[in-house]
């Protein structure tokens, strides 16, 4: 196998900024959909239907999305179309807030998101290869989190000072810098074989490259279960906590909730490159254990701490968990699936586990909160996180590669 030169700084920076702007385009307008449609005199039932359709498509589309990226000749082109699709759907929300158009836009947005996650991981893997991927994924997580933070600030300001509708127009406009950044990544520096998690072989190896072989990989299945538990414990924590804060401190509630969202983002931006490096130095298992421990501790603290200002400090643990898994999900999937040629499909499998865990989380925790109160719900979520910790400790093998 010929040794490829490392990717140029231009491509690396192109990917940085692509991820930064994409965070604005992809997640920026999500929180405004319900409020915007309410101002357009939509009923809560209709809004619920549209949001659920988007959620279901986003869940079912994970594996097909990964398979599309695996089959693609150019990850860049696929990503470009997906960004354009999201831009158009934002425009559709702004211009025609009627049921069929908004439903179509929600479906388009969800499908594009299913493709974009794997496409970014694939471009990263194609650029730097399986040995330097940890560091690159750390950098990805940093820019995604900076992008999310500035998106929340920008969209919040636009929504407050201009109008909810203009949030969607700004999203549409931000698709342009996103596409420019994407075009700065040099196509020829992306090793397309490597991006799919394949190895160029002299003789095709039917056994190693079959999909069935991939889904029989024990570490992948264990990791998918662990991620399901992670999301089951994590997804409902912030919403329930925000509900508690709203009832306790009315005047400062929006500011406190904003702080609870921003603190973890800042931690991710600071820590994720370190996570990427340490994952290579220490191995994957210790990092995963840190991520799950932080989540369990957060659940216990949310159940016991009552001071709303201390709750913001507890969100530091959310940042640790988020930084760990933003890097570790694509990293471990790359470890396990490299050589199979189905890296992105494997990401889709883990993505499906993420979606199932997250949607179950809000339903179950919401039910427990109604019946037994917030503290019991938080302890239950901490228990789920502890189960995930045990799963990693007892069954999950180390997946780090030291040689190609």
């Amino acid at each position: 196998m010929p040794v490829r030169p490392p990717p140029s700084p231009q491509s690396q920076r192109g990917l940085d900024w692509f991820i930064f702007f994409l965070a604005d385009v992809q997640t920026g307008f999500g929180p405004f959909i319900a409020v915007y449609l309410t101002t357009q005199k939509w009923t809560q039932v209709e809004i619920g239907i549209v949001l659920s359709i988007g959620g279901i498509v986003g869940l079912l589309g994970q594996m097909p999305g990964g398979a599309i990226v695996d089959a693609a000749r150019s990850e860049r082109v696929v990503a470009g179309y997906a960004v354009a699709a999201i831009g158009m759907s934002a425009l559709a929300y702004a211009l025609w807030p009627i049921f069929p158009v908004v439903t179509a836009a929600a479906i388009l947005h969800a499908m594009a998101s299913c493709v974009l996650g794997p496409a970014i991981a694939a471009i990263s893997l194609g650029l730097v290869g399986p040995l330097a991927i940890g560091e690159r994924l750390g950098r990805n997580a940093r820019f995604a989190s900076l992008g999310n933070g500035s998106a929340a600030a920008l969209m919040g300001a636009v929504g407050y000072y201009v109008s909810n509708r203009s949030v969607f127009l700004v999203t549409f406009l931000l698709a342009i810098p996103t596409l420019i950044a994407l075009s700065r990544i040099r196509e020829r520096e992306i090793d397309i074989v490597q991006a799919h998690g394949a190895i160029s072989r002299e003789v095709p190896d039917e056994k190693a490259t079959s999909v069935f072989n991939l889904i029989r990989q024990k570490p992948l299945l264990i990791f998918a279960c662990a991620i399901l538990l992670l999301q089951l414990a994590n997804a409902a924590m912030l919403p329930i906590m925000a509900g508690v804060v709203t009832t306790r401190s009315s005047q400062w509630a929006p500011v406190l909730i904003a702080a609870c969202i921003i603190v973890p983002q800042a931690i991710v931006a600071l820590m994720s490159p370190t996570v990427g490096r340490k994952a290579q130095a220490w191995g994957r298992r210790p990092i995963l254990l840190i991520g799950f421990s932080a989540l369990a501790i957060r659940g216990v603290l949310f159940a016991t701490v009552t001071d709303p200002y201390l709750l913001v400090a507890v969100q530091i643990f959310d940042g640790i968990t988020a930084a760990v898994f933003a890097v570790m999900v694509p990293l471990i999937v790359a470890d396990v699936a490299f050589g199979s040629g189905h890296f992105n499909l494997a990401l889709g499998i883990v993505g499906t586990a993420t979606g199932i865990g997250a949607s179950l989380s809000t339903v179950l925790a919401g039910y427990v909160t109604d019946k037994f109160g917030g503290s019991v719900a938080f302890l239950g979520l901490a228990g789920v996180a502890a189960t995930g910790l045990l799963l990693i400790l007892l069954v999950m093998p180390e997946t780090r590669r030291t040689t190609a």
Partner: protein
Amino acid sequence: MRARWLVAALAVALATSIGAWAQSETSGRSIAQDVPKQDAAKDPKPPASVTVIGARDAHGILGREVRSAADENMGRIVDVIVDRDGMVRAAVIDFGGFLGVGSRKIVVDWRALRFGAIANKSDSISLELTKDQVSKAPEYKEDQPVIVLGAAGSLQPWEFDH
């Protein structure tokens, strides 16, 4: 052979059900037609009455912003609650939170709302409650007794049968 029987049986079943449906449809229609016929014999049905309200006197309120007397943002009206007599009892407002996280649907007494400035689309409805009073309210859940938050001193439990 068996398949053919099955198809035949299906066809018969389909035909009878369509027949039955058509029959019920026509009988339903005939009843509906009988009533106006009797009316028409006496005098033609009067046209629907028309009331004209000035554009500045009344307006839809779904999605309208609610503000407190101290001009705090109290959320938006997302639903209106009506009792069995058709009386408007309360409004559901989506209150609090930041970027969609931590907001709750709470119910406020219709009499605690003031609609003085309703004419302009950008005008808000004012609520005689403060953020502190509203923040303690329980979340609105369908099919459960509704807890209505009234203006100070007028909070009374709503009577319900079940």
